[in-house]
């Protein structure tokens, strides 16, 4: 009998663009990288763009009048423009460079939140949040006396929107949530959640760290007030991310960090803040990284976000089908591919994920083991830890076959 899921075209045009995927973990053991939800690998073009900056353009930006400074500034601001376009925004003043998603969210809580929210105000989050969209709000709640409520996650890994509807009657000031779960892979209905929040008069923040890298997110379509994301999960370098925000809101926010570049004028006892987006970018930024971020976006655009989504859904379908056949393996979250991104977390009998990950590593397979910075979510599913395999455009069916073989070895050892 022909195996229907083995009929896919196994070729992958993207893999060759990622130099690290050519290395061996140990002599004779090639890398099988299934940890892109933690960080993605970088294509040659991103690495080259950053190298070009250091070899040919290196200078501090914005203030200098010499050629290098002008070219570096143009490259940095050019990256901002391409990233702005990539998320469907029109105004580059709305795109603020940060260190990562975490810093973007902290920027919102520490400036907008601190200056706007008052004792007793309600913030709605979800049970599936990454610690980066929990802890900043907990810190602000402790400081300001805010109330926190959580949209529950049901057994199938979806948000319970009926409960959300009830919570909205409590008149929240903020609804902040992740677009796609880094553990369950659940793609939350962002547009609907945001529309409901707006009707209730709340400001919305979308943690798009796992979504923007994998499918088209158009800021006009989702209509959030703030969107946070990181370059390193979308083929770019570490150390740079972005906060997109609506201009009217950003303009009324106090600055975040104080220092150079974020000012217009400075006196001994006072300063006036610079215009957007520089108001939120104090000090010399990560220039090479911003340029690398821009190159990453170029790569994604040329690959085509729709093709990337299709490719990953094909891989998830294939992987779920194969994983189901492993006795004692339980997948967390949705089993419907239409609502699940390229992230599969699972438990295997009572074998500890660290042991699973270690044995897989001996086969060159990189997966993640632990709570994936979502301890409350694991608690909700009454487990402490899980093993996670996550995919990106450079993965193929062969990588998944390696994973399956590796898991069989795990079972053999713990038999």
């Amino acid at each position, binding site marked *: 009998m022909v195996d229907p899921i083995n009929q896919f075209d196994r070729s992958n045009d993207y893999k060759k663009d990622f130099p690290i995927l050519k290395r061996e973990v140990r002599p004779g053991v090639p890398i099988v990288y299934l940890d892109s939800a933690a960080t993605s690998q970088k294509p040659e073009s991103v690495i080259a763009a950053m190298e070009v900056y250091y070899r040919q353009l290196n200078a501090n930006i914005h203030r200098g009048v010499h050629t290098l400074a002008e070219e570096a500034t143009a490259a940095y601001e050019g990256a901002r423009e391409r990233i702005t376009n990539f998320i469907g925004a029109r105004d580059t003043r709305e795109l603020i460079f940060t260190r990562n998603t975490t810093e973007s969210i902290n920027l919102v809580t520490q400036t907008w939140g601190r200056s706007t929210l008052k004792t007793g105000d309600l913030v709605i989050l979800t049970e599936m949040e990454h610690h980066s969209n929990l802890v900043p709000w907990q810190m602000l709640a402790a400081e300001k006396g805010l109330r926190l409520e959580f949209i529950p996650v049901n057994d199938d890994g979806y948000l319970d929107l009926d409960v959300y509807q009830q919570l909205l009657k409590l008149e929240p000031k903020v609804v902040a949530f992740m677009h796609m779960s880094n553990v369950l892979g659940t793609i939350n209905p962002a547009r609907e959640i945001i529309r409901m929040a707006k009707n209730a008069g709340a400001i919305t923040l979308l943690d798009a760290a796992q979504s923007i890298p994998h499918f088209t997110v158009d800021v006009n379509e989702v209509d959030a007030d703030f969107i946070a994301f990181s370059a390193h999960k979308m083929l770019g370098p570490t150390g740079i991310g972005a906060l997109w925000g609506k201009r009217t809101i950003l303009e009324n926010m106090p600055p975040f960090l104080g220092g150079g570049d974020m000012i217009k004028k400075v006196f001994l006892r006072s300063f006036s803040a610079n215009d957007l987006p520089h108001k939120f970018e104090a000090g010399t930024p990560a220039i090479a990284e911003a340029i690398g971020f821009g190159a990453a976006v170029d790569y994604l655009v040329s690959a085509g976000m729709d093709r990337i989504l299709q490719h990953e859904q094909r891989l998830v379908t294939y992987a779920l089908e194969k994983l189901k056949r492993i006795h004692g393996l339980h997948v967390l979250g949705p089993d419907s591919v239409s609502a699940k991104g390229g992230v599969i977390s699972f438990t295997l009998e009572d074998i500890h994920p*660290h042991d699973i990950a270690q044995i897989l590593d001996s086969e060159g397979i990189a997966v993640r083991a*632990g709570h994936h910075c979502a*301890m409350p979510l694991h608690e909700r599913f009454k487990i402490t830890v899980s093993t996670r395999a996550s995919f990106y455009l450079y993965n193929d069916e062969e990588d998944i076959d390696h994973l399956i073989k590796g898991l069989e070895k795990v079972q053999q*050892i*713990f038999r």
Partner: protein
Amino acid sequence: MDDLYREIIIERSKNPIYRGELVPHDISFEDENPLCGDHLRIDLRVDQEGIIREAAFSGHGCAISQASADLLLEYVMGKSLDDVRRMHKEDLLDLLGIELGPVRLKCALLPLKILKAGVYGVGGGSEALDEEVS
């Protein structure tokens, strides 16, 4: 690799001898590995001469940490609290008989860190071992 999951590690993690809780106990201490959320508690009963007469561990963790806890408690049975204070990480690693990278080393040494913290009183032992580990 196959060395890392030696027969004894698998056997001791699946069928530990010292798994359980002692109530009442003379010494009890628990802690966790923040990297993986693994949690471990060790209970001891000690006689008047300071000799460990009964020992048990509870909690959850990977095969390495479970086997390490079981082998450690077996080793300290009948030994004095002073003997425990004098233990080094190498003593435990010898019991395990495996080579570990820095991340898994924390799994393997968590039981000793907890045992020492219990014997020294909260904090003291774990600081002493942290220095040794890092």
